[in-house]
């Protein structure tokens, strides 16, 4: 687990050290982008049992790559006839976005590419009550609250476009693979913040971002 984390951080650092500015005839200013996901809050209006909030920050390495950090919070409730499950926690995803558009096309405003992320999720879950029926009758039980740490990796193809000056909208599909769920053999997390279905090793998702683009003085 530590080795996987170390490899991702090494890749992350090396990509920054080895970055070189593209030889463009167009001057594109390096920028910082700050945004928020609106898919989570919008979904909350359809299902009050799931509240997810997520923020986005990126810093341009060059015209083709940007360092990205995403962080968020999840409050998840699920209940059916035989149990209730509660989960709250925070997550963070770090990685790089690769813009597949040429600098002459992207102009520092448009993005069509793929991101690679390493994600970590810290959460607290519990099962306040569940029931089980067998020959001896109905027995009630519970799983006390406990904290867990999950790790996952993600590929996120997506697009972004400038709506008006320095205001960008965009969305991406999230393809996640669970590395470590953090729970034991008897207890799995139904939902992991930042990842999704904790009972599956693969979990897809979608994000829709509103982003504020902040151009810096230094050109790429």
């Amino acid at each position: 687990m530590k080795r996987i984390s170390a490899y991702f951080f090494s890749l992350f650092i090396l990509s920054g050290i080895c970055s070189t500015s593209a030889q463009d005839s167009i001057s594109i200013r390096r920028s910082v982008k700050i945004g928020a996901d609106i898919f989570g809050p919008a979904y909350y209006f359809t299902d009050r049992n799931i509240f997810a909030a997520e923020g986005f920050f990126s810093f341009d390495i060059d015209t083709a790559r940007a360092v990205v950090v995403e962080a968020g919070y999840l409050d998840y409730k699920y209940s059916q006839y035989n149990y209730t499950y509660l989960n709250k926690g925070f997550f963070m995803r770090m990685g790089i976005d690769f813009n597949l558009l040429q600098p002459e096309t992207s102009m520092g405003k448009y993005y069509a590419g793929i991101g690679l992320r390493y994600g970590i999720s810290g959460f607290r879950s519990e099962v306040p009550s569940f029931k089980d029926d067998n020959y001896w009758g109905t027995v009630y039980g519970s799983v006390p609250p406990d904290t867990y740490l999950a790790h996952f990796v993600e590929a996120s193809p997506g697009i972004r476009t400038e709506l008006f000056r320095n205001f960008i909208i965009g969305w991406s599909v999230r393809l996640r693979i669970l590395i470590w769920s953090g729970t034991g053999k008897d207890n799995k997390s139904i939902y992991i913040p930042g990842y999704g279905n904790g009972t599956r090793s693969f979990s897809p998702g979608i994000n829709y971002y509103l982003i504020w683009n902040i151009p810096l003085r230094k050109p790429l």
Partner: protein
Amino acid sequence: MKQIITGPASRFIIAIFVIIRIFSCTPQGCLEESDVRVRGSFYQTGTGKIRKVDSITLFGMGIDTLKIYDRVQNVTSISIPLNAGSDTCTFIMKLDGIADTVTFIYKTVPHFISKECGYTFFHNIEKVTNTRQEIDFLIDNRYISTANEENIRIFL
């Protein structure tokens, strides 16, 4: 530029997501095995070979109106449900008409099956005792789960 990005690329990504969601959707209903039982087979003392029992009746102590096995014939193996609300469980087992009182002592832990099925209880057997001296119970696998694995051997 906006059209290039929002047009074909947009539709492509939407299509990928829809396909992924379709294939990732779990079917409704509990499909996983959720019945937790102690699984045991009958063996011949001396030879160690599996043997049949001509007739078996099995019920929980105090629940003689609801039988787990009611004069079932030619049985080589049985499965026994434990009481998750207690750490001991006693059964009356009649083999070929002769009764034996069997007691299981165990620890119980909650176990998550799936989102659709919910939770059940798994057990770890610590001890099995019985009253008939000619019948021996040997614990093969203490971990009682939904898996179809032998947990005890009953030597006759």
